[in-house]
């Protein structure tokens, strides 16, 4: 069967901060750009970002991009590529000022400059301190302001939006060049081939592979799934940032302020277990210490509830006045999502996934790279990625707060420029291969024809539970090994899902089945990469790799200072070196990461 074909200079998949910034670059260069989004652009997940965008503007006191770079390298636990980190930190002030000129409503100082607030991990003097105010924000609506500003600019530049369109598969020819995507128009249920001279992914995160995540429902890692199925490896997928306290079963964030005000964590015996793990700081210990303690209590059978899979956050002893006054919003969140009133009852909590450090491998220009002919970073012609779905790698093993928005805008813009260059150097249009739509048609035929299959919901829930239990914030070798086995079983089950509703128009159930095809790729990559990495580094924290002489916090630079590359075919793993050489600055040599 042949699908209808539409042709463009460039197709951008994703209309969050990264996709919109890239598209703007392309549209302003006069190219014919199609931007696809599953939801209206300003409803992309970027809208949830509150903390701000990091840039060494130095508006509040002395700052420099070199200090920002140092903090980012250290935050990454030395897994970040120092060329990409230099590029992002050096460009950050420029892109923020550009956003200001685009009309983004940043908070301001009395002298009219952009106000900047402090954020964890951002310091002066190459990590020596004191803390620096580097985060530029628009009240607590920075993501919202960013999306609206960029969306308006794109409308002005005549970017063509395909809203409520879902990209399904990448189209590659025999040489490996990327020639566009297949995509589903939800309104009609029609599938098209979007034939493009360049294709840019900006599909965001994939927190929905975990039972507990702060990510919205649309964050299903579609870009990663499409890339993996097309033979592109996924990089550093073992690294996910968790937040210690999310509402169990819902994932919604409970701010750290709750413990700051005196909230305490209890296990099933009612014990305030943090006293055992951190006798001095107790519940105020750092994020990783608290998360690790919670995971250990659950693993050792002292979790609460019917499945013993959460702990309790008690605040009733603070009294209703303190809760209402100092912790606004917490009572509503607990009532709505945990069905408890914290004035009387404790809130069930678990560590909750926030951010994916890994992704589609790119260089700092946003060009997708993969090993070929001995070069670990050979460019995949016609393919680009930016934002949370890409891995440049700016965040390495752990992202600093406010650095994601910086990454979206800097790499988004750079990727746009790379596309412009590529199109200028390659003026023609390559033909689509005859079987361009084959993988998509096969996937849809399988799904539409499936009899006696399993429910998408049931398989997805099992996947999320498995990831949470076997590949959570603190990782145990036995659980990881068992997790790999279980995820492989789930691969079989995903291939047999059935959707009863066969209608075409806005078939959410069918969309969810197609999303599950992407979730399973991300989950496999995560579990297999995590099982294999026998060290603790940044967010990858293994119970069998702990702090000892020569191995700061369990990190093993002699064997593991390298990026993981996971391939869909056969769960194959490969590794490539970390780039410790910045573009112009001096290399920042690995040392223990302590704050």
């Amino acid at each position, binding site marked *: 069967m042949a699908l209808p074909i539409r042709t463009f200079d460039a197709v951008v998949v994703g209309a969050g901060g990264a996709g919109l910034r890239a598209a703007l670059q392309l549209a302003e260069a006069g190219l014919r750009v199609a931007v696809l989004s*599953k*939801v209206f652009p*300003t*409803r*992309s*997940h*970027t*809208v*949830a970002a509150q903390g701000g965008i990091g840039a060494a503007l130095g508006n509040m006191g002395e700052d420099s991009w070199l200090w920002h770079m140092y903090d980012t390298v250290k935050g990454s636990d030395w897994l970040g590529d120092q060329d990409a980190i230099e590029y992002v930190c050096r460009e950050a002030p420029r892109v923020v000022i550009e956003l200001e000129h685009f009309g983004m409503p940043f908070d301001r100082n009395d002298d009219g400059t952009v106000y900047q607030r402090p954020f964890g991990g951002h310091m002066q003097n190459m990590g020596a301190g004191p803390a620096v105010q580097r985060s530029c924000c628009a009240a607590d*609506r920075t993501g*919202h302001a960013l999306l609206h500003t960029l969306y308006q600019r794109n409308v002005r530049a005549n970017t063509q939006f395909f809203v*409520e369109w879902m990209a399904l598969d990448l189209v590659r020819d025999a040489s490996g060049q990327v020639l566009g995507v297949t995509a589903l128009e*939800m*309104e009609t249920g029609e599938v098209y081939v979007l034939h493009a001279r360049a294709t840019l992914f900006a599909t965001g995160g994939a927190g929905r592979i975990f039972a507990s*995540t*702060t*990510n*919205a*429902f*649309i964050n299903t890692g579609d870009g990663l799934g499409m890339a993996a199925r097309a033979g592109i490896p996924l990089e550093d997928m073992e690294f996910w940032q968790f937040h210690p306290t999310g509402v169990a079963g*819902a*994932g*919604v964030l409970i701010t750290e302020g709750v413990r700051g005000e005196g909230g305490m964590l209890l296990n099933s015996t009612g014990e305030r277990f943090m006293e055992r793990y951190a006798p001095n700081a107790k519940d105020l210990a750092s994020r990783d210490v608290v998360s690790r303690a919670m995971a250990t209590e659950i693993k050792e059978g002292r979790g609460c509830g019917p499945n013993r899979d959460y702990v309790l956050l008690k605040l009733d002893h603070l009294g209703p006045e303190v809760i209402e006054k100092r912790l*606004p*919003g917490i009572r*509503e*969140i607990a009532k*709505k*999502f945990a069905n408890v009133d914290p004035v009387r009852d404790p809130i069930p909590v678990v560590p909750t996934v926030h951010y994916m450090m890994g992704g589609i491998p790119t260089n700092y220009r946003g060009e997708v790279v993969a090993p070929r002919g001995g070069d670990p970073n050979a460019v995949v012609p016609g393919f680009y990625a930016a934002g949370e779905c890409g891995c440049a790698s700016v965040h390495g093993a752990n992202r600093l707060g406010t650095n994601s928005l910086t990454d979206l805008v800097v790499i988004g813009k750079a990727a746009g420029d790379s596309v412009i260059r590529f199109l200028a150097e390659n003026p023609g249009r390559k033909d689509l291969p005859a079987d361009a739509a084959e993988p998509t048609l096969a996937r849809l035929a399988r799904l539409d024809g499936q009899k006696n299959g399993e429910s998408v919901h049931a398989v997805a829930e099992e996947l999320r539970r498995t990831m949470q239990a076997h590949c959570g914030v603190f990782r145990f070798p036995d659980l990881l090994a068992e997790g790999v086995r279980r995820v492989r079983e789930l691969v079989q089950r995903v291939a047999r899902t059935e959707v009863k509703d066969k*209608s075409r*128009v*806005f*078939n*959410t159930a069918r*969309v969810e089945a197609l999303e599950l095809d992407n979730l399973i790729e991300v989950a496999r990559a995560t579990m297999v990469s995590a099982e294999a990495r026998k060290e603790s580094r940044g967010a990858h924290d293994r119970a069998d790799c702990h702090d000892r002489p020569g191995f700061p916090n369990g990190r093993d630079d002699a064997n593991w200072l390298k990026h993981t590359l996971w391939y869909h075919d056969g769960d194959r793993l490969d590794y490539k070196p970390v780039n410790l050489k910045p573009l112009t600055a001096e290399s920042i040599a690995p040392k223990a990461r302590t704050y």
Partner: protein
Amino acid sequence: MSGRARTRVSEADLRRLRWRCRRGMLENDLVLERFLDRHAATLDAEGLALLNALLELGDNELWDVLSGRRECADARLGPMVRMLREA
């Protein structure tokens, strides 16, 4: 939702609504999902119109309204806001 005769909602409208309840913020996703599970089958045309109007709000504003931190500027939407808050 009122005493007037209820107008049925078309299957197509309901399907579109279900997808449009996908939002940029998890909190909104969760509340809207629960609402649909409970009320989608009995939603009438008036209810659908009110809900669609609410969905026009940005995610942050919508969550402010759903969590009760702020009242909706448009008083017409009051009954729908109450149903969503109770869901």
